[in-house]
C-alpha cells in the first residue's frame, strides 16, 4: 500500500449538498495515516453525501479538502460488480483499471478463493459484499471511504473485514466509514455528524441563489 506518509486527509469547513440543498455544513476533521474515523449520526444526516463529496463524485458547496480524489477509494452498496462475470474476472478488471498488482492476495484476504470462478450473480448478499470490499484492496489507494461496509456480513466476515482494515491502517493507510454498528477496531475514533447539520439560511446557514428573490 504505497501510502504517501504525509498524505493525511484534512477537511476544513466543508459544506455538502444533496438535491440542491445543503445537508451538512462546517464539517472539519483530520485523518492521519494509520487512523480510522467512523461517521456517526442518525439516518438521513448526510453520511453518504459527505463520503461521495470527498470521493469527488459530487462537488462541495464550500470548504477545503486537502487530498485529491485520486488517492481515495470509495465503496458503497453497489460496487460495480458485473453479474455475468466471475468473481476473479470482476476483480481482475478493476486491477487492470488501477494498474495494480495481481488479484490472488485480495481474493485470499477476503476469503473468496473458493468462489473465484463463480459468476457474481450466484453469490449470496454477504458474499457479494466481500467481493465489493476485495475491490478496495486492488485499487492500491491509501484512503478508503466506506459506506456501510458491513451490511449483510455475518460475524465471521465482520471480523475478517476488521482485520483487513487493521492491516491497511498498519501499512499507513487510513479509512473513513459510515456505519451504524460497532466494528471493534482499536485505532478508530468516532465523528458524530449531528452538530454539523445544515441550518436554514435565515438562521445563518448557506443560502442558495434563489433565497432572496421574493423577499
Amino acid at each position: 500500500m504505497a501510502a504517501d506518509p504525509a498524505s493525511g486527509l484534512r477537511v476544513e469547513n466543508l459544506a455538502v449538498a444533496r438535491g440542491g440543498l445543503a445537508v451538512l455544513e462546517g464539517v472539519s476533521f483530520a485523518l492521519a495515516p494509520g487512523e480510522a474515523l467512523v461517521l456517526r449520526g442518525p439516518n438521513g444526516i448526510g453520511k453518504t453525501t459527505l463520503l461521495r463529496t470527498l470521493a469527488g463524485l459530487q462537488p462541495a458547496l464550500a470548504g477545503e479538502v486537502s487530498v485529491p480524489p485520486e488517492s481515495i477509494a470509495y465503496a458503497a452498496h453497489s460496487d460495480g460488480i458485473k453479474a455475468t462475470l466471475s468473481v476473479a474476472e470482476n476483480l481482475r478488471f478493476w486491477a487492470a483499471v488501477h494498474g495494480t498488482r495481481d488479484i490472488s492476495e485480495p481474493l485470499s484476504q477476503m476469503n473468496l478463493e473458493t468462489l473465484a470462478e463463480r459468476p457474481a450473480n450466484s453469490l449470496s448478499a454477504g458474499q457479494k459484499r466481500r467481493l465489493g470490499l476485495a475491490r478496495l484492496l486492488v485499487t492500491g489507494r491509501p484512503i478508503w471511504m466506506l459506506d456501510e461496509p458491513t451490511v449483510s456480513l455475518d460475524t465471521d466476515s465482520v471480523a475478517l473485514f476488521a482485520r483487513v482494515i487493521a492491516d491497511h491502517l498498519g501499512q499507513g493507510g487510513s479509512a473513513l466509514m459510515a456505519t451504524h454498528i460497532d466494528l471493534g477496531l482499536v485505532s478508530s475514533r468516532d465523528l458524530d455528524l449531528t452538530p454539523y447539520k445544515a441550518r436554514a439560511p435565515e438562521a445563518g446557514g448557506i443560502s442558495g441563489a434563489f433565497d432572496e428573490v421574493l423577499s
Partner: protein
Amino acid sequence: MIALLIRDLRLAVRAGGGFGLGLAFFLIVVTLVPFGVGPQGDILARIAPGILWLGALLACLLSLDRIFALDYEDGSLDLLVSAPIPLEGVVVMKALAHWLTTGLPLVIAAPVFGLLLHLPGDAQGWLVLSLLLGTPALSVLGTFGAALTVGLKRGGLLLSLLVLPFYVPTLIFGAELVSRGAQGMATQIPLLMLAGITAASVALIPFAAAAAIRVNLR
C-alpha cells in the same frame, strides 16, 4: 483502458450473443419491409439503400441504452469516473465496444441484406463502404445521447428522441452515397461529407459525452 474494452466485449457476449442480436434485428427489419410495402422488386430496389441505412440506424439505436445504463446502475460508472483513466478515454472505449458489437457485424453482413432487397450489384460495394464510414459516427453520437440520459430510469425512448435528429446528416449522406453509386453518379461529395462527419464526431463528441457523464453523476 483496453481492459475496459475487453470487459465490455465479454459482457456483450455473455449477455447472450452480443454480436448476433443487432444483426438479427437488422434482418427482421429488412424482412418486415417487404411485408409492409409489398413485394415488387423494382420498388424494393429503389428504396433499398434507404431502408438498409434505416435498419442499421435502428439496430444501433436499440442497443444504445446498454452503453452506460448498466454501469450506472451497478455503480461501476462512479468507480470508473474516480479511476485513474481519463473519462474521455472511457467514452471512446464504450463507443468502440458498441461499434464492434453492432456496427461492424452490420457492415460485414450488409451485402446479404442488400441481396434480399434486390439492391443492384454495383451498389453493393458502395453500401459496404458507406456503412463502414458512417456507422462509427452512429456509435459515437449514440454514446453522447446515452451519456445525456444516463441518470434516468429507462430513458430508452427519450434517448431515441435525442439521438435520431443527430443521425440525420449521416443518414442522408450515407443513403445518398449508395444510391448515387448505384446510378453511377459522382460520389465524391457524399463520400467526403460522410467521412468528415465521422471524423469530426469521433474527435469531438467524446468530450461532450464525458462532460455530460460528469454532470449526471454528481
